[in-house]
């Protein structure tokens, strides 16, 4: 890809991804509402919310939390662009991992009880999904012989056929990243009385909008990663990703929020075990 093409794709991703994510979030809220017997907000509500937040007055606790918010936004957006441009999956995972670090540090950089609790729980969430994500990416290498997304896209044999258990484990990661019950532990779309708004408690106005946009980029990142599991033709992968998104909404509505200890146990004992078994099968039959 020439430099011009690369720039064009990057800019297109940066502009289109939030739009798609916003629409998906709108569908999410509407659909969830209908499942719960409510009418729900208009489909464009997430956009209205972000625009409203951007126009609000800036209220801050300290400088540090703002810096981390920028870090979260920047790395989340950059990770998505890198993934779309066909980058190295391991680099991308480290990048998105650092985005999560910035979010956690932003919450932990203020002496606020709810923010601090949310931040610490964010750390447990990271501990729950990071090993799975890292091991899954290595599994992709073992299946395809490369970390590069380009190579995966060209292969006619879908990833999901070689890594079915990894795929299931990644759905766990998706649930955690989307902050859906039962894993909406550090913050969620709905306010929780227990920790108010968790990691984003001390953010308001424009910076809350910035974090929301960062979350949107993260959502698109996860859905793209899932779509990669059927990369040829890619429309099947996209369809799978959308179906998983639908599944997430249903799971969210039917499950209650659990404790972080439960999340840790399930992720590591079940999720990581699934990935481990899949990797073992790959290495035992190849090595």
């Amino acid at each position, binding site marked *: *890809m020439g430099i011009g093409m690369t720039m064009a794709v990057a800019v297109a991703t940066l502009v289109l991804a939030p739009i798609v994510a916003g629409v998906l979030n709108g569908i999410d809220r509407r659909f969830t509402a209908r499942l719960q017997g409510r009418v729900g907000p208009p489909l464009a509500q997430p956009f209205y919310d972000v625009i409203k937040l951007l126009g609000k*007055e800036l*209220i*801050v*606790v*300290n*400088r*540090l939390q*703002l*810096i981390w918010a*920028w*870090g979260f936004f*920047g*790395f989340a957006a*950059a990770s998505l662009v*890198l993934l779309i441009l066909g*980058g*190295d999956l*391991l*680099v991308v995972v*480290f*990048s998105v*991992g650092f985005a999560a*670090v*910035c979010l956690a*540090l932003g919450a*932990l*950089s*203020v*002496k606020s*009880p*709810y*923010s*601090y609790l949310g931040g610490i729980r964010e*750390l*447990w969430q*990271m*501990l729950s999904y*990071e*090993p799975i994500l*890292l*091991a899954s990416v*290595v599994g992709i*290498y*073992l299946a395809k012989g*490369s*970390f*590069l997304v*380009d190579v995966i896209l060209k292969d006619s044999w879908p990833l999901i056929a070689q890594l079915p258990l990894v795929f299931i484990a990644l759905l766990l990661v998706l649930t955690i990243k989307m902050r859906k019950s039962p894993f909406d532990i550090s913050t969620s779309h709905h306010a929780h009385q227990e920790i*108010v708004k968790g990691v984003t*408690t*001390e953010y308001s106005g424009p910076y809350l909008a910035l974090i929301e946009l960062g979350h949107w980029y993260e959502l698109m990142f996860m859905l793209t990663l899932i779509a990669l599991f059927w990369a040829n033709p890619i429309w099947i992968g996209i369809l799978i990703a959308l179906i998983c998104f639908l599944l997430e909404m249903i799971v969210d509505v039917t499950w209650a929020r659990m404790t972080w200890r439960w999340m840790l146990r399930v992720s*590591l004992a079940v999720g*990581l075990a699934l*990935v*481990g078994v899949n*990797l*073992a099968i790959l*290495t035992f039959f190849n*090595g």
Partner: protein
Amino acid sequence: MTGSFLLGFLILFPFVAAFIAWAIPSHGLRGAWVWITAAAMAIASIVFLLVTKGAYAPDLPNSESAGILIGILDLLLLLFFLYVGIRAKSWVITILTLVQLFPFVWLEWMSGRHPAVSPTFIADPLAIIMVLVISIVGSVICIYATRYMVEHEEHLHLGKSRQRRFMFYMILFLGAMNGLVLSNNLLWIYFFWEVTTFVCYQLILHDLTPIAVTNAQRALWMNLIGGVAFVAALIIADVSFETLSLRTIATEHPRELAILFPVFLLALAGFAKAAQVPFHGWLLGAMVAPTPVSALLHSSTMVKAGAYLVLRLAPAFHATPFSIVVAVFGGFVLLMTAVMALGQSNAKKVLAYSTIGNLGLIILCAGINTPLAISAGIILVIFHAISKAILFMTVGAIENRIGSRDIEDMEGLCNVAPMLTGVLVIGVLSMIAPPFGVLIGKWAALEAGTGVMSRWSFVVILLLALGSSVTVVFWLKWLARVLCAVPETETCKPTPLPAAYNVSLWGMVFLLCILSAVAAPLVTGLVVPAVDSWYNAKTSIGMTTNWGLTLDNGFVPILYFVVIGLVFLVAPALTIRVQRERVKPVYMCGENIEYKTSWHGLADGTFDLAVGGSYFSRDIGEEKLNMWAIYLGLGALVFALAMTLMMFQI
């Protein structure tokens, strides 16, 4: 000619400089002498690199007489250890010393065996990397120590200063380490190895408190276990293979069953020196020593010697079942120490556990045993030394400032000591975040894990993924306490740090950033040749293509991280200014009292907010996990030995 002069300088000058430092009575003059020594060592090591270009393997002309001298000094050392053991009525120390003493005396003087070792010294790229780390990072820590010890003795209200003795051992140690990494003769390596044990013992008990003396003795006997293994390896190597050359043992008998015995024993000595589980107890106990000791010996250099030895030996067990066992062992240490660090609130102990874990990671790389993995290990050696040095020095300075090394007492440090907090944040992030070297090393290790020629590689991958995720949690948990700041109603004016701290801390940070940014040329220039010379093959370490430093599609990951980091973290840090009227207190679900973290509560009483860290001592506290760690570690070592004995195909 210059090469041999520099080599001799790097090994012998510190011994001379140490005596001079000890002889100087005045603090100021001694401090100046330390600065001079530090500069001389650093410059000498860099010139050594430029002059020899990593291909220098001289034979010392009168190595026979040098060997005799070393033998005598070694004997004196062992006799000193015996004296320590008897004086302290410690049968462990006494027995372990005797078990070393008699075989050593037999080997050195009674066996009549004197295999010629050629070349005497090997200054290949790996040795030069170690020399650079020792001479530059070590020297900077000595500079730091000049200021730290002044504050330390003030706090202890010490009547008669003991800094002469301290600086003597610190500087002497640099020479011993250089000798260790540059020697090819295993007897000489053994001598320098025992010198480091001796210096470690003397420095841990420096403060002469009862706990310091106890922990120094524990460090001594655990390291003596390594010494026993070392002597046993020497004898087996000499008797079975007629050689005492490290290069011969490591590279010229690959995969032979018989060579695996001395290799296993040497690796065991390396594990003991590197405080791997089950030997981790001594390093934890060594944290009672003054912080420069922890920075120099117990993170950057001495413990690295253990990992360095395992890296050196890697070609010998390449593609054997023993190799994957070493990798799994390293991964187990990484995970175990990471979990134990989660339960620690003592900052120096957290750093100690992290050090042991990273050494386990380097050993994991040695176990994976591909060129990419060995490169990853070497990268980790370099960058972990720098990052840990920064972290220990900062914690030492913080401890002198606030009087405590407990993480809970560091709450809101960014309001009290913003400069130190800044360095601490950089130090912690350099351990877990891109583009800093430690993460690059972990990335390389993860990629290397895919290339293992074993069906059990998935275990290594899982341990690595899980271990590195747990490390992120305990580092961020620490930062959470440090950054837990009350709203800024007044700007905090940073107090200037003393010159020694500024030079050492910011100098190391600068070095870290430069090296992380130029990691690509560093790898191609130093690390790849290091791997090449020991694997006897021209390797192109494929990581995606060219170690990922420049990918196939022209992408440069480090550049990516640096740019994004600069734009979205450094730029906001430098430009965001918050106007005072925009600052509001935090939400506490109550009626805030002005900008304090207090609120009006029940019966109009005032309630203060208290935030605390979580350490889960009941579940993962040191007391709970230590026994498990020791049993599992011992089990792993026994299993490794069984692997060696049976060449069991798994």
